[in-house]
């Protein structure tokens, strides 16, 4: 399992014993799902101030050879249109490279934002990390029609 230090400039594999790093952008350390796709953990208020570093982070993960990845928003408390824009452009990048951008969301406020903008029907959304598939895609979160 490869883990990454939460830096925006580049991703560095964590050495054994290295402390986990949380940076000021609230994009914290990454994990790898059972299907070997990276999970980027995003916490706190994801707004205009955080969007640029999030964009670089996600672009970096795709550039590292991971066209399919998960963005864990379980710890996110606020998401605005600038953050949504980053997710949309990253999704396009993932598709261009033959992959998919998946979201892990259970916060009703975040889900509401995705519903309002129509993006809840665009992204594969999982309600927990346990729902992330071990192989292929798991059932997506049931959403209100």
């Amino acid at each position: 399992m490869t883990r990454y230090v939460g830096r925006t400039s580049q991703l560095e594999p964590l050495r054994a014993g290295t402390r986990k790093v949380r940076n000021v952008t609230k994009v914290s350390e990454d994990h790898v799902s059972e299907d070997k796709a990276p999970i980027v953990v995003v916490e706190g208020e994801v707004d205009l101030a955080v969007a640029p570093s999030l964009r670089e982070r996600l672009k970096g993960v795709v550039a590292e050879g991971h066209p399919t990845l998960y963005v864990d928003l379980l710890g996110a408390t606020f998401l605005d249109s600038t953050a949504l824009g980053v997710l949309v452009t990253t999704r396009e990048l993932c598709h261009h490279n033959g992959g998919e951008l998946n979201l892990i969301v259970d916060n009703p406020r975040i889900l509401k934002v995705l519903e309002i903008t129509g993006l809840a029907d665009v992204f594969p959304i999982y309600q927990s990390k346990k729902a992330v598939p071990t192989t292929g895609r798991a059932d997506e979160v049931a959403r209100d029609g």
Partner: protein
Amino acid sequence: MADRDVESPDRPEVISLSFPARADLVVLARFAAATLASRASFDVEEIEDLRLAVDELVVSFESVQAGGTVHMQCTHTGGTVTIECSVEPGVTTHPSEGVAGEELWGADVELSKLLLDALVDEHGREYREGGPCVWLRKHRANAVS
């Protein structure tokens, strides 16, 4: 300062706020709006809606340059919160805040509009004294009209 428990429709409560046009300070706009919404007895869902709406309002400017100043006025009267926002261009900036005139942000207008349409009762854009002014209005759900 108005009494929180005694609503006075004839006497608006006004909060005026100015801050440097910096992405990391947009949180101030959200804080001011949430504070006034709370004083206007909005419920938690309405306060959260207003927080996101005012964020979208601030980031909805097509272009904001470093060195500018964001001016915001929040008014509460009779269960209705009105927020107006404008950006005054600037020519100087602190060295740590980037180059004066450098574009700081430009909105994903489509997503912002979808969110504003859903979250507030009215919103709009007009030109005043040569510059754009964006505004929104949200009524408390149980407000007497």
